[in-house]
């Protein structure tokens, strides 16, 4: 077993604006099963952060419990990180974001962590519009406890041991759309061409960004009757639109042809360029997105891509009118102004 990846890298590796190569965004060597989709997500996150030239120390990696929640250890080892309690990552992230709104919050969760034990936490963090990227690595099974069916497994499928999925699956994208998320997308760990631009856009998006990533469990859910196996997903994946992410600094070289292509400007000035593959595709209709997802599911297809984007939606801090200066940068006098202010607050209730 190799516990080490060589520090040698390709001599002609490109560097980003910070002079870093993508290798500088890596973490520890993964201990997940060989072929785990989560490792591909890790690699896509590394690539996205490299391409965005994010300073690693200004990122906080948040996670709960599960295979997916181990993954943050495998990327951005120079970033901050918090591996929290099962299903409670949203609360911890809310607290962290309150204390320091200047960091980029990159959260990684799984179907168990978000759709079972943490479903309540998930619902409320969407409602809160917390400025974060919430990734769910969705494989439809509890891999860490040997492959029981998860709440996101399609009704009627069986797990590796033949256990039938009796209940309706929870679609986290549909939930996020219902609860007002301003960036909702689904992708596949095996499609980095789609995944990397989506992660970049989701990080650049101000507000709550949700990204559900079908990530096959190679050990417990890659069998013939699975709807989350590599082969099944490769065969049943469908995309309504191809999205490119164009960062602020990059010159836009080609025209966007009306009807086929649409540019959406994100809060920071970067662009999402959307090449429509289906004529009726739109980014600004959450209800239609829910319909599309369900329609494709009924046909046995997995719809991927950007479902909904509202670049101007309010985020948590705007809704709460919170301080522009992160709380951790305010000094004691401002944070705790003393008796005089307390009395005036108390007086206002009298």
């Amino acid at each position, binding site marked *: *077993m*190799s516990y*080490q*990846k*060589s*520090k*040698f*890298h*390709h*001599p*002609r*590796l490109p560097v980003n604006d910070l002079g870093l190569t993508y*290798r500088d965004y890596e973490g520890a060597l*993964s201990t997940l*099963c*060989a*072929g*785990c*989709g989560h*490792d*591909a997500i*890790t*690699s896509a996150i590394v690539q996205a952060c490299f391409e965005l030239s994010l300073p690693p120390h200004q990122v906080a990696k948040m996670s709960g419990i599960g295979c997916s929640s181990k993954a943050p250890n495998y990327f951005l080892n120079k970033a901050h990180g918090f591996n929290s309690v099962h299903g409670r990552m949203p609360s911890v992230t809310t607290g962290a974001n309150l204390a320091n709104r200047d960091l980029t919050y990159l959260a990684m969760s799984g179907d168990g962590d978000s759709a079972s034990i943490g479903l309540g936490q998930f619902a409320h963090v969407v409602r809160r519009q917390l400025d974060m990227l919430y990734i769910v690595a969705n494989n439809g099974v509890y891999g860490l406890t040997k492959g029981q069916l998860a709440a996101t497994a399609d009704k009627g499928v069986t797990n590796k041991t033949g256990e039938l999925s009796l209940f309706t699956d929870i679609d986290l994208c549909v939930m996020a759309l219902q609860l007002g998320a301003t960036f909702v997308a689904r992708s596949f*760990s*095996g499609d*980095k*061409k789609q995944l990397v631009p989506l992660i970049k856009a989701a990080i650049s998006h101000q507000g709550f960004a949700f990204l559900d990533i079908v990530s*096959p469990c*190679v*050990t417990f859910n*890659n069998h013939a009757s699975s709807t989350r196996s*590599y*082969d099944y997903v*490769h065969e049943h994946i469908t995309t309504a639109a191809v999205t490119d992410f164009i960062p602020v600094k990059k010159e836009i070289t080609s025209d966007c042809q009306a009807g086929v292509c649409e540019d959406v400007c994100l809060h920071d000035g970067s662009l999402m360029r959307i090449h429509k593959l289906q004529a009726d595709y739109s980014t600004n209709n959450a209800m239609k997105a829910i319909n599309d997802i369900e329609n494709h599911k009924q046909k046995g297809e997995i719809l991927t891509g950007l479902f909904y984007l509202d670049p101007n939606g309010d985020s948590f801090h705007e809704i709460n009118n919170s301080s522009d200066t992160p709380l951790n940068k305010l000094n004691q006098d401002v944070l705790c102004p003393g008796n005089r202010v307390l009395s005036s607050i108390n007086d206002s209730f009298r």
Partner: protein
Amino acid sequence: MKNTDTSSYQHFLKVVDCQHACPAHTPVPEYIRLIAEKRYTDAYMINWQSNVFPGVLGRVCDRPCEPACRRSRVEDKPVAICRLKRVASDYKADIHSYLPTIPQQKNGKRVALIGAGPASMTVARDLVPLGYEVVIYERDALAGGMMRSQIPAFRLPETVLDEELSYILQMGVECHFGEEISSLANLLQAKFDAIFIGTGAPAGRWLEMPGHDLASAHIEVGINWLSNVSFKHTEAAPKRVVVLGGGNTAMDCCRTAKRLGASEVTVLVRSSFDDMKASPWEKEDAKAEGIIIKSDHTPIEYVMSGDKFVGVLFEKVSSSYDEKGKRTLVSTGETLLVECDLVLVAVGQDTAFPWIERDIGVKFNKWQQPELNQQTLQSTLEQVFFGGDAAFGPENIITAVANGHQAAISIDLFCHGKSAEQDRPEVGFNLISQKMGIHDWSYHSGISHEERNLVPHIPWEDAVKSLNTEVELGFDEKLALEEAHRCLNCDVHTVFNEKTCIECSACDDICPMDCINFVEVDEGLVNDASNILEKLRVKEVNPEQELLVSPALKTGHIMIKDEDVCLHCGLCAERCPTGAWDMKKLTIDNIGATIK
């Protein structure tokens, strides 16, 4: 873009750059692994089979393997392959029991070898164990050829040479030392089944320029002078010596002159310092011993003052290059007189075949080189074969050895009434999985990040005092093991099976060198290489290195692996959930005539 043919060894051999670059295709990573396991005798025998003179070559090989070493593409310097070969030779146990048994019953075929240099000795090594009676004719008193006469003992101790020659001579070779063949026509009468000519390139070139005849008492051809030193006919050098030329012979001349008492030794060469033909390490060692090397100087005259020899007059030149990189020397008009007592001319050497009659069937080309079949080394007279410098002009020891092996195969076929070309045996190869467990390999797959180790040497001030004391000390065991671990095991190949790949991308995610690519091929552009290369993780590929291209996978994508900087760390195969990648060791049975 063509799929790589993985049914033959060609692609895989090219990946083992060192082995591919070695004319004798020595399995370099294999013997370095054995050194890392302290199995020095085994490492020596692997070498002995391919290159016959591991102890000699571990010191004085031209090392085509080292510039080829993949390590120099991922960090500064290649593995010290040549030095490790010497380690195998230094630390081996007695190898006599490993040597082939010589059949008592001979096969009735007699072969004459002319010259006892590396090429002929290799032919003897290959043919005697097969039952041939081999007769060697050598004009010098001892075997070894240029290894003895042209390489000074401070680089190659006589004991090392004698030992490795003795392994072959002890097999039972009829030797005629001090016997120069003066007529091939006569030898052809002597009822040999085949004759091998390995007479080297014994004619050193003179430099014809004004003053040559008058100054001739003060001018010597470098290789002749070195030979005289080697056979103790020359035992001193005058105070001031000028060496003309910039190759390894020039380096040997200047360093030898210094040891024979010359205090001012200057090497002058027409080219720039960087363009000198000498190996970089030879130049460094010469400079370290206090030799002055003056580049960009063309000799124009041997200068006499009356009857007295003064020295050599040079013109200073500069090298200019055209677009094709062709060099022309441009005069600067400046001249320089270097006063000296002896001039050693080391500007090249040629083959000499005055003893081969031109009417006996051996055809020569316009450069007076024999016309040979490049592969079989057979001349136009079917029972006469050539090898080493005699075949194609001056090369090096390892090329002579490689020629010897090829000629031995040809002679063996010829003596059995077969065609040396058509009936030549196929090169056998095998790819064997190195998997020992789920994440366990039979080789050390971890990558050492150590830098190249320098070989220890005796103090330079002591070095120049003794003609026969070897300058380099060789690696001690600690350095040897550290250096051996730098080898990237390039002979353990990443072999891909597209049928079992599920396209999970685990391999291309883990690869530390960004070698692996899964590429979507646009419709109708399968043959458009530039379109496909544009999609690689690192687009700038090394044109010298081939890509491993798979047939289409289930999704229609293709796998392209850029072999250029692969570390052979095995992570791709460890991460593959379906065993579509495997680490397989290539073995090549490339020296067909030798003992199996």
